C-alpha cells in the first residue's frame, strides 16, 4: 500500500508542476549564449593564442633569469642589510674626529741605512763602484 504524501510534499510537487508551465523560452537566449561561446573562441578551434602568449611569457622570464638581467633591481640581501651603509661608515666618534684634525707631517727625508724602519741598501756587486 502506498502511503499518502504529506501535505507539504503534495504542495511541493504542485509547485514543481506549476513551475514547469512558467515561461522559459530558450530561443531569445540562444544567440547570446552561442555568441559568447564562439567569441571567447571555441576551445577546440583557437586555444593557440593563449598557448603562444603563455610560452612567450615563459621564454622571456627564462631569458631574464638566465642572463641575470634583473641584477640592478635585486632586493638587498641579508648581508647587505647588516653591513654598515656608506653614511654610517663615515660617522666618526669624538676621538676619531680629533685624531683626524691632527696635522699630518709628510717626511721627505732620504732613508738612512741602519735606522729603524728603513730598509738596508742592497750590497754592491763585487768589483762595483764604492
Amino acid at each position: 500500500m502506498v502511503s499518502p504524501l504529506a501535505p507539504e510534499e503534495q504542495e511541493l510537487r504542485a509547485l514543481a508542476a506549476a513551475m514547469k508551465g512558467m515561461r522559459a523560452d530558450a530561443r531569445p537566449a540562444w544567440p547570446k549564449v552561442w555568441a559568447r561561446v564562439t567569441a571567447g573562441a571555441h576551445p577546440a578551434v583557437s586555444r593557440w593564442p593563449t598557448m603562444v602568449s603563455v610560452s612567450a611569457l615563459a621564454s622571456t622570464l627564462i631569458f631574464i633569469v638566465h642572463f641575470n638581467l634583473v641584477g640592478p633591481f635585486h632586493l638587498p640581501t641579508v648581508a647587505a642589510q647588516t653591513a654598515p651603509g656608506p653614511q654610517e661608515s663615515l660617522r666618526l666618534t669624538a676621538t676619531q674626529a680629533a685624531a683626524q684634525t691632527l696635522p699630518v707631517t709628510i717626511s721627505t727625508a732620504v732613508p738612512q741605512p741602519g735606522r729603524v724602519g728603513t730598509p738596508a741598501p742592497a750590497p754592491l756587486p763585487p768589483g762595483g763602484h764604492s
Partner: protein
Amino acid sequence: MARDEQTAKWIELGMRGDETACAALFHIYYPQVLRLSLGLLNDWADAEEVAQDSFVYAFRNLGRYEAAKSAFRTWLFTIALSRCRNKRRRKLLELLPLEALHAESVPVPREVEQVLERRGLRRQIWQAIQALPSHLRETLILRYLGEMRYKEVAEVMQCSDRTAEARARAAMDALRDALKVTGDATEMALAELSTW
C-alpha cells in the same frame, strides 16, 4: 532514436563546434537549468544570467563531460549549482544579515508569483523554501524542481545517497515547521483583526 542516444550524438557533434547540435541541447535543457537557478537564487534576472553562464561553460568544456560518470543533465546541474552558490554568496554580502534571514521579508519574483496564483498555491511555500539553510534548500530544489532521484541529487551535491535523502527529510521537516509558524501567525493576525 532514444533520447539518451540523441543527446550523446549532439554532445559528440557539439564537441566539434557544431552549432545546431549545441542549439538542440540548449533548447532541451535550458528551461530546466533556468528553473533550478530560479529556485536557488530567487531572482529571475540572476537565474537567467547564471543559466546562460552555465551553458557557455558547458559548451566550451564539452570535452570534459564523461557520459559514463553521470547523465548530461546531472553534469549541467552541477555546473549551475556551483554558479548559483557563487552568485548567492556575492549577493548575500550586499544584504543586511537580518534581512537575509527573515523568512517573511523574502521577496517572491513576479514570475513565480504569477505561477503560484494561477495554480492557487501559497506564496509562503516559496518563501519557506528560500528561508531554509542552503544545503537543505539545495537538496529540496534539486529533488522537486529538478525532479531528481536521491542518487542524482547526491551526485550534484557530491554527497552520499543517504545524506541526500536525510537532507531532503530534514528540509521537509523544516518546511513543515516554517509553514506551521506562518499559518499560526496568519491565524493570530486574523483573529486580532476580527476583534477590532
